[in-house]
């Protein structure tokens, strides 16, 4: 067994084991959860350092998600810190990491379904709306059907083996796109996201939404497997994503429920990720990948701060009038505005770079519809500022018995999130360069001539003298592909 496989297994299995331990022992659950998540973080980091620079998106996502879960363990208020919540979060962590690291379609499908399991439990999830469950169920069904069709055709189930072969043709492509639409909450299947955020537990729901399984499916499966179909049909998904970004941004202007409002803004911003992935330009795809990280961290930060406010000042927070909470919780106010503005492109944060790249990429590929992106972002910025103003500004309220600002553990974990978005904004090349290489590979896949992947797969054995070290950087890799593609038989 390879070292990477062992580490991947550790990163996935330890949270699951910790989740079971929490359910059995029912004591010290925060500590057990923290340790479980920490082990995942360490294993994912070792995997990332061992991964080749140009193909490390999965490992980066594993590190990011396990760090988010680690942070969630610390931010989780005592009121929410129950064995079932901790167990559910750990289960979600293991499932998400399994999906990121899956190399087989069946494993990916299992992880996809497993990650939704806790949300079907009414006791755990809490939201009584049927739409979150319907969205998750439909997305899982679409993916399952696609996998079944591929299996029925007798094809291999290893993802790398299917690259460029368009398994199942347009029907499987359509099912995969449907899975993305339902899971990501793209119009017209967007309403479940706000319902989930409104009725469900804030932090676990934020983790579910920040798995970004829809974007992962696009980057990991749809583009590599269907380069030609994606090239022709993908603009439809891109238009839908841009329309979602604008629709949801407009929808947020009149929303007064803080949770619903945050979900709408996060959805609008994460829809931009899909638009960027489809832009077929290196700038757009890099922007999308970087934006993925920013949206994930900022959204988690915002939901975390909101939940901390709810447990301090009551669950009936509303953006319909001014609550003046900054006087009671000034540090939470600062964290909220920094995360909020980081989500919508504040200079000095990583999202400024990602938005810059996204706008360049989408306007380049869709000069007319691409304009929706800056318009949606501008509206989201106004919405976020409105929410900040309504929650934190205004006349100071009296009569609170608890006046606590952020506790030490909350303060430092939120500060770590702020540090990520700010340091990432000041020194973006560390992140952008890595994602640019990844994006270049995605872009190449989408620009590849018709049937090139099939050709390359067939011709691969005809080139005997491949140098392994040639794969260490992207330039060598691309030259290698050219040699494979254009070498005489």
């Amino acid at each position, binding site marked *: 067994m390879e070292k990477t496989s062992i580490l991947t297994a550790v990163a996935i299995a330890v949270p699951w084991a910790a989740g079971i331990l929490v359910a059995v022992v029912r004591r010290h659950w925060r500590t057990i959860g923290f340790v479980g998540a920490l082990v995942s973080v360490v294993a994912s980091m070792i995997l990332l350092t061992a991964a080749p620079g140009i193909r490390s998106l999965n490992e980066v996502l594993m590190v990011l998600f396990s760090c988010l879960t680690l942070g969630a363990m610390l931010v989780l208020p005592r009121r929410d810190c129950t064995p079932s919540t901790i167990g559910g979060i750990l289960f979600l962590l293991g499932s998400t990491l399994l999906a990121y690291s899956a190399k087989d379609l069946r494993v990916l499908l299992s992880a996809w379904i497993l990650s939704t399991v806790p949300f079907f439990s009414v006791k755990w999830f809490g939201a*009584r*709306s*049927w*739409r979150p469950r319907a969205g998750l169920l439909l997305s899982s069904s679409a993916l399952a059907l696609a996998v079944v069709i591929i299996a029925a055709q007798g094809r291999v189930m290893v993802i790398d083996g299917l690259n460029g072969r368009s398994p199942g043709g347009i029907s499987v492509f359509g099912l995969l796109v449907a899975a993305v639409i339902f899971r990501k909450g793209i119009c017209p299947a967007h*309403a479940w996201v*706000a*319902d989930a955020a*409104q*009725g469900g537990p804030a932090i676990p729901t934020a983790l579910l939404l920040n798995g970004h399984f829809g974007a992962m499916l696009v980057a990991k499966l749809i583009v590599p497997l269907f380069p030609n179909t994606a090239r022709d049909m993908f603009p439809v998904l891109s238009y839908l994503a841009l329309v979602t970004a604008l*629709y949801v941004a*407009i*929808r947020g*202007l*009149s929303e007064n*429920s803080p949770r619903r409002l945050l979900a709408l803004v996060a959805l609008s911003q994460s829809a931009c990720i899909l638009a960027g992935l489809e832009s077929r330009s*290196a*700038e757009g795809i*890099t922007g999308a990948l970087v934006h993925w990280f920013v949206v994930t961290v900022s959204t988690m930060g915002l939901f975390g701060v909101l939940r901390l406010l709810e447990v301090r*000042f*009551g669950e*009936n*927070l*509303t953006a*319909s009038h*001014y*609550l003046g909470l*900054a006087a009671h919780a000034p540090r939470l106010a*600062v964290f909220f505005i920094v995360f909020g*503005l980081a989500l919508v*492109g*504040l*200079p*000095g944060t990583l999202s*400024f*770079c990602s938005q*810059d*790249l996204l*706008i*360049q990429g989408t*306007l*380049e590929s869709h000069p007319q519809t691409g*304009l929706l992106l*800056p318009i949606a972002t*501008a*509206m989201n*910025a*106004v919405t976020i*500022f*409105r929410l900040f*103003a309504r929650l934190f*500004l*205004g*006349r*100071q*309220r009296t009569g609170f018995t608890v006046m606590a600002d952020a506790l030490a553990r909350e303060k430092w974990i939120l*500060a770590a999130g702020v540090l990520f978005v700010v340091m990432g904004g000041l020194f973006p*090349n560390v992140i952008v*360069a890595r994602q*640019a290489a990844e*994006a270049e590979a995605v872009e190449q896949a989408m620009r590849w001539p018709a049937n090139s992947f099939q050709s390359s797969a067939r011709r691969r054995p005809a080139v005997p003298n491949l140098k392994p070290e040639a794969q260490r950087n992207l330039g060598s890799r691309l030259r290698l592909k050219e040699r494979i593609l254009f070498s005489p038989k």
Partner: protein
Amino acid sequence: MDYSQTMLAFAVLAPGVVFVVLALVWLAGWVPSESVVSRITGLTFSASIFALAVVLWRIAATGAPAVVLIFGNWFTVQSYHFPLVLFADRLSLPFMGMTVVLAGLIGQFSATYLHRERGFFRFFLLLHLFAFGSLLAFAAGSFDLLVAGWEVVGITSVLLIAFFQQRTAPVENGLRVFAVYRACDIGLLVGVFALHNWSGTASFASGLPSLTGSRASTLCGLLLLAAAGKAAQVPFSGWLPRAMEGPTPSSAIFYGAISIHAGAYLLLRVQPIVVQSRAASAMVIAVGLASAIHGTMSGRASADAKTSLAYASLTQVGVVFIEIGLGWRSIAVAHILGHATVRTLQFLRAPSMLHDYHKMHSAVGGELSLAGKHLNELLPEPVQLWLYRWSLDRGHLDTILDRFVIYPLMRLSRLFARLDGVGLTGSLSQRESPLSRQRAAGQGRV
């Protein structure tokens, strides 16, 4: 890096570094005393003034057109790159000098003016951030970097409008200003994209790219949108009186001096392109003329001192726009510098205006006589009344914006909310509908 480049970097970065340090100190739980904060502010801006003086001396002594400091690319993706270039030439240096001198003065003034104010520390924190954003915008060697500084100025401006956060009016007005800024900044973002697309770079450190008529007009139109938003020109002037809710020192530096002239700076920066296109020149002149007329009329009908001064600023910036459209670059720069200085003084004296009047009246031994007849008295009375109503309602600009942009957008938003509500289960609609939320909020209001 030679000494002038070091000084340029220092002048731009010093306020930003102070902001970061003060913010971290606050986050760690320590709030420095007023005297410490004001001393740090004084030292920072004094050092920045000295640094800029060195840069100016270097340019004057060597006759070099500019001091350029290239840090490389902030980030690169294939052929697209974000150049990190600081650039001090004969256009940016006056603006940078104005920023550090006035920010230093405002810092000294505010140490007394805001003494024992609850938001004293917050004000100084934001003053440093604003100075950093302005210096970054003025010293940027590319439009990409200019956008970064531009946005920082916008955010700081909004946070200072909402400075008196205990009252809802400043906060509401801050939100309105923020919305206008963000809407107009779309022009800048798309303009920068257009520059990248058409010329391969948005850097102007080695000269602006030459663009053809239609492209020049499009680019100037987009940048004019951003400039008009930031400079409160017609039709975006409605936010200016709202911005007067902030503390007087911030009104002075933002809307009397720096922020309101940032739009003019942007147009001056692209002025070689503006003059290449008659349509662009005409647009700039038309906006400037409309703003100057609107500003002078609305200012005359304003009841409070700060709003009158704000509209006076607007009028002068409108005239500056006309000068830029006509290609009178040097006159525009001189006009900006003179106007910013005088207007800052007027804003800072505004709170003691009555005291000044009383002092003057005592000196002359009674009230001053009326100035005499006004030209508007030559107009028929119904026209005078109509003009008065028009001026009193500030050209109906806010009403037009509300009726044709904000209300339709909010109606659309509510329609979308209703559409999203279709298909809810009975239990959900009872538990999570807006009505039930309001009821719940009413019962257990925080």
